[in-house]
């Protein structure tokens, strides 16, 4: 695999011995991860294992205390300018969508391009409509988020991130707050995105999705990476006992 000897500036995301504490609590322990451009990574693991914390470190929503995180060739440090640079290139979708309720769907999508990328409004609207069409809800552009279903809201959230033209997309359990019927419409959008070659890091328990698009599945427990493999090997032939237990639990209902 490319991950062993790729030099850092070819990598989309590189985590080297990352450690993080919440107060006394050691939440991430020596995490190492290399993601090449275009790679799709699915991260799974039991609740509280640190999955969210890890991907939130990648766009510095959380700070790590030890180790190195390099995103797109930029190392994340205290330097606010670098953090801004990284955030411009990294899109993120949350479990609870986090759309801005006081703005329309279209305004949600044009806000960052206009204020962060300094794009003229007309161009931002054009791009926003383009992505809203791609997530198949252009007709909702003038509604407010509160008037949409959960699945529609999550698709708007994806479109909102894509409007910034990110190189990397982070997803933190994007479907776990949704009803079964809506999960599919969101996953369809994500599969399409994957097929177009977007670099994706995705915390999810949707194993069908993982088998379909992931290049690699990472299993975390207690703040550590326990096992990492390509999806078929991972699901059919897990090596670690902890992984086996976890898989038997989530696949058995």
């Amino acid at each position, binding site marked *: 695999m490319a991950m062993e000897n790729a030099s850092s500036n070819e990598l989309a995301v590189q985590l080297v011995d990352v450690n993080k504490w919440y107060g006394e609590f050691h939440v991430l322990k020596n995490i190492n991860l290399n993601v090449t451009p275009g790679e799709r990574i699915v991260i799974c693991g039991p609740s509280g294992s640190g999955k969210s914390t890890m991907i939130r470190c990648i*766009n510095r*929503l959380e700070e790590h205390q030890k180790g190195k995180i390099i995103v797109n060739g930029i190392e994340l440090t205290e330097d606010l300018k670098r953090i*801004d640079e990284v*955030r*411009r290139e*990294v*899109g*993120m979708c*949350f479990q*609870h*969508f*986090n*759309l*801005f*309720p*006081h703005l329309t769907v279209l305004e949600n999508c044009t*806000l*960052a391009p206009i*204020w*962060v990328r300094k794009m003229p409004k007309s161009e931002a609207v054009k791009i926003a409509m383009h992505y809203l069409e791609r997530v198949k809800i252009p007709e909702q552009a003038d509604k*407010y*988020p*509160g*008037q949409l279903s*959960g699945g529609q*809201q999550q698709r708007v959230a994806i479109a*909102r*991130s894509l409007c*910034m033209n990110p190189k990397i997309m982070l997803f933190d359990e994007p479907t776990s707050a949704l009803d079964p019927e809506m999960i599919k419409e969101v996953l369809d959008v994500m599969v399409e995105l994957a097929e177009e070659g977007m670099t994706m890091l995705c915390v999810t328990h949707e194993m069908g999705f993982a088998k379909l698009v992931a290049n690699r599945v990472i299993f975390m427990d207690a703040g550590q990476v326990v096992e990492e493999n390509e999806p078929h090997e991972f699901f059919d032939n897990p090596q670690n006992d902890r992984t086996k237990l976890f898989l038997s639990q989530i696949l058995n209902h």
Partner: protein
Amino acid sequence: MNEFKPLPSLPPPASLTGVVGWLHKNLFSTPLYTILTLVVGYLVISSLIPVLDWAIFSANFTGNDRSACESGTGACWAFIGNRINIFAYGSYPAAEYWRLDICFALLVLSFGPQFFDKFPYKMWLGVFSLTGFPVICFYLISGGAFGLESIETGKWGGLALTLMLAYVGIVAALPFGIVLALGRRSEMPVIRTFCIAFIELWRGVPLISVLFMSSVMLPLFLPEGMNFDKLLRALIGITMFQSAYMAEVIRGGLQAIPRGQYEASKALGLSYWKSMGLIILPQALKLVIPGIVNTFIALFKDTTLVLIIGLLDILATVQASITDPEWGSVATEGYVFAALCFWVFCFGMSRYSQSLERKLHTGHKR
């Protein structure tokens, strides 16, 4: 097998309509309600009749001194009519009343349209009322420029002064309050400590003592020769005091914004100020409109306290006039009139805030 076919949608059932229907549903639906309605109705009407009789039917509306009111048993509104100029303008020179009239007209013109949902240039009117309006009024009222005679602040008074104090207090306290609220939630200890100290200091003392300090104590600490206007000092005192209150109201709103909103705006690359200005504050301020207006109304009424430092607002001019021997006992009329003036403006603010809330409502939050 049967195919699933949804039932057709039907119109809602017709409810009781018309006046009779409304009366029946709301006032006489059960025997108990009927009795309650009759009792309350009797109480309201029997207490309203003497009030109306005093205020309107037996009242005197014209006349220039106490003889006009000696005949009747009702209110002596002639007194109010006779003194209305003092109540409205204080001791501002009569020849210059037009300047205050213009300011008042501008006030009505720039806020009146805000009550109509369809009026197109509301945004610009809003900007004008925060920027151009105070500047124009300041030059008009104080004069000393553009060929206008200069009129010292000691002569400003009456309703004009009340409105001025309240307006400046409101317009200045809101931005200061926002800054203080953000500062109190800041991650930088120096800024946070300063804001907490400021807020707790000003919030913990009565406005009367703030005014007293600003007018009596402050000059003692200032270097010789440096002296600034009493009205200005009162304004600064009121603004500081109200900013502290405002800050806490706004902080309540900031507290209520879910963490996800901060995270989403960070993840999109918005800077601190942009995410505050575009995402957090618009939502937080909308949430606390009732609290903000509450503070404004309290401020409006608190302006009466400037009396103790010798500024004559509307209540003070009323109080001075009712002791005038030229008129009999007109204290009731005077206070009722003052109360009515305050009520009109406070009620206006309350209505405005409600229309604002309706306008900004964008469906349920999820």
